[in-house]
């Protein structure tokens, strides 16, 4: 099946221009019943800014689970009310993307790729009314009915397909923006701008659970075929050798990372008997299950960080009778050190613990403690290595003398992998001694120096628990037989008593 696509020009992987090519009549019917169909938009070639915005809004709303075939007529007036209540604060009353929230959001409100939530909570009728209202904001654009674009037949994922996809990935230069391994660290990254001139980051393809357009193969293939309106992401349907290559590409992209991710609630530290390797890429580490921890922007203390660069750190931790080691993996699109000229800072990550174990639930304040109740940090900075530090708040970090921690890091294709080691027991009273089978509070902070993150501009977590598994625990071999024997004895007693009474 050949898709009927009308496009102008080729993108060839160049950084985007500010003109939009809105002549794509992208609509596709896909034999995949569980998924909604997508209605593309047609309109005049005028790249009006408002049009693009409205088009996007409509696209998103229509995409939000509504069958194109049943496109209902909405009441624009009713939609206006909903719009004013629910949308105008970001998108502005006129739909020009100049709502009060605009200055803080990245990408800006008009671009729906990350900041826009699903509005599936609104009743379907309201959503249709909204669509009708949005169309009135740029009436010229919607004079013509949308035309359809059809995707080629779906190709199931297979090693061959993925291999073909990888070839295509390089051939059409996805890596220029999305990076060799898809971690959004491509060389063009710093130059990317959306259609209105705002800097915009490419998607990290190893995190499909974050794809706003959906992480099903059909969703990815649609993005590839259609591009993402308003962003530097162009349509690739004509760049690939054969149309079905979009499916191979989609399969390849989806092979880069897991479709969904389960975030950890506890950092389990495995007990090992062998020596712990320093090399973060040693096979040893692959055998340890990672704990995925979500990082969020620090928005409490100025300067705040509303758009954190690092949002995930995967932690593997092991210990033996002398040492504890943390293997941390996180994506950072730029490897950077402190450089005043380029306005970049050292990439950094830190693990936070209370300075001493304490009974009860009380802990220091999660944001690096406060004046009277500080925290203990294991802090690694690119170019400086690991330090032990005490903090009494995010701006009051003091390194501790006589650090016993060591670290080794590697940076490959947009990803840091780091091993931090420390003796299990500390001789100093101001540093935590790790004890097995105890729930120890732990928190994380990370800085992407390349994105200007330093000081309180960071991403962080609130408190989690860390627990060292008991060494060679015999409990599971001792407890069950005891329980069984006791039960048996109790039953026997019951039987005997019953018989004596009978």
């Amino acid at each position, binding site marked *: 099946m050949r898709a009927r696509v009308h496009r102008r020009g080729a993108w060839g992987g160049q950084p985007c221009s500010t003109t939009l090519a809105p002549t794509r009549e992208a609509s596709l019917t896909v034999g995949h019943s569980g998924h909604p169909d997508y209605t593309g938009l047609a309109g005049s070639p005028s790249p009006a800014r408002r049009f693009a915005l409205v088009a996007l809004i409509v696209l998103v709303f229509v995409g939000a689970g509504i069958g194109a075939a049943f496109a209902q007529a909405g009441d624009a007036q009713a939609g206006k009310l909903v719009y004013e209540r629910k949308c105008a604060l970001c998108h502005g009353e006129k739909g020009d993307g100049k709502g009060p929230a605009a200055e803080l959001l990245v990408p800006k409100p008009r671009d729906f790729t990350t900041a826009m939530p699903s509005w599936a909570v609104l009743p379907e009728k309201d959503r249709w009314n909204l669509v009708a209202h949005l169309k009135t904001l740029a009436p010229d654009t919607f004079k013509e009915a949308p035309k359809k674009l059809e995707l080629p037949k779906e190709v199931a994922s297979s090693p061959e397909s993925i291999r073909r996809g990888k070839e295509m990935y390089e051939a059409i230069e996805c890596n220029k923006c999305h990076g060799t391994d898809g971690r959004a660290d491509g060389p063009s990254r710093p130059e990317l701008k959306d259609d209105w001139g705002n800097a915009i980051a490419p998607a990290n393809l190893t995190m499909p659970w974050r794809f706003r357009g959906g992480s099903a193969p059909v969703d990815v293939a649609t993005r590839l075929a259609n591009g993402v309106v308003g962003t530097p992401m162009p349509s690739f349907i004509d760049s690939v050798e054969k149309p079905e290559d979009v499916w191979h590409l989609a399969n390849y992209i989806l092979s880069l990372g897991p479709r969904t991710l389960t*975030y950890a609630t*506890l950092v*389990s530290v495995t007990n090992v008997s062998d020596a712990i390797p320093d090399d973060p890429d040693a096979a040893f580490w692959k055998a340890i299950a990672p704990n995925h921890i979500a990082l969020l922007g620090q928005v409490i203390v100025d300067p705040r960080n509303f758009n954190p660069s690092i949002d995930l750190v995967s932690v593997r931790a092991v210990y033996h009778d002398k040492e504890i080691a943390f293997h941390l993996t996180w994506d950072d699109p730029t490897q950077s050190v402190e450089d005043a000229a380029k306005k970049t800072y050292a990439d950094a990550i830190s693990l936070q613990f209370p300075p001493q174990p304490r009974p009860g639930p009380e802990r220091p304040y999660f944001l690096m403690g406060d004046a009277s109740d500080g925290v203990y940090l294991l802090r690694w900075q690119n170019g400086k290595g690991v330090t032990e530090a005490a903090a009494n708040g995010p701006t009051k970090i003091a390194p501790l003398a006589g650090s016993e921690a060591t670290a080794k890091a590697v940076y490959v294709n947009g990803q840091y992998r780091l091993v931090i080691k420390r003796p299990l027991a500390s001789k100093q009273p101001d540093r935590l001694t790790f004890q097995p089978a105890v729930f120890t509070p732990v928190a994380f902070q990370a800085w992407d120096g390349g994105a200007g993150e330093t000081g309180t501009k960071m991403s962080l977590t609130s*408190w989690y628990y860390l627990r060292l598994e008991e060494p060679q625990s015999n409990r*599971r071999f001792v407890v069950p037989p*005891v*329980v*069984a024997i006791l039960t048996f004895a109790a*039953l*026997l007693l019951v039987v005997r008593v019953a018989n004596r009474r009978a």
Partner: protein
Amino acid sequence: MNFLRSRFVQAVLILIAAFVVLRFGIRPPAPWSVVQLYMTIVLLAVLIYVSADSDSWREFVHPIRSTLVEPDKRHVRLALLVVVPLLLGYYAYTQAAARPQAPPELRAVHPAPPAAIQFRGKELTIQGLDNPLRKDQANLKKNIAAGGEIYIRNCVYCHGDNLDGKGHFAYGFNPPPANFQDPGTIAMLQEAYLFWRIAKGGPGLPKESTPWNSAMPPWEDRLDEQQIWQVIVYLYDATGQAPRRWETEH
């Protein structure tokens, strides 16, 4: 079905059915602590059911006693003597070998507010305090709009643009941000309570509400009194909830 007439069988079936409903019938799954509590109550009720009169109790005890005593049930008895300890032993094994979970936590939903707070060097009495903006009905609309702006600039990241506590940063914080759409949150509280929570944030919580975990910033550093009241009227307006009023007696 004669089989279902047996009190013993009934008791077992009720317990199993209750467990299935409580464990798997409630979506999203009920916390394990609640399931345990419910099952204890159901167990008590079942015991009362089978023993509420003597006939019923005899009927309930009969199969148990006959299994324990009668010579022709010897094999059943022996089988039970083997199977029950094994089952319990296996259960103990699964418990002992299970990967440890983060321990459950308890966090007071509505911590007790102080009688008065210091707001930017000024003492504000919380008890009995009303939102001054409500007196100014003429400008209420304007204040709500202003509150909306403040909300969208400051609060939306955690509490979400639908005010349901599902903002961008909501998924990673523990405790999760409050859901204002839930009738159990702001609808149960006076506006002065919200003022206290907004002004003092996580660090202002009493100990039982784990202030060290809460990511709510103290907004008194950024918003002035009027702005906080504006956000509050916006919250109620946008969710369609009404604030709790102070009781007029006393």
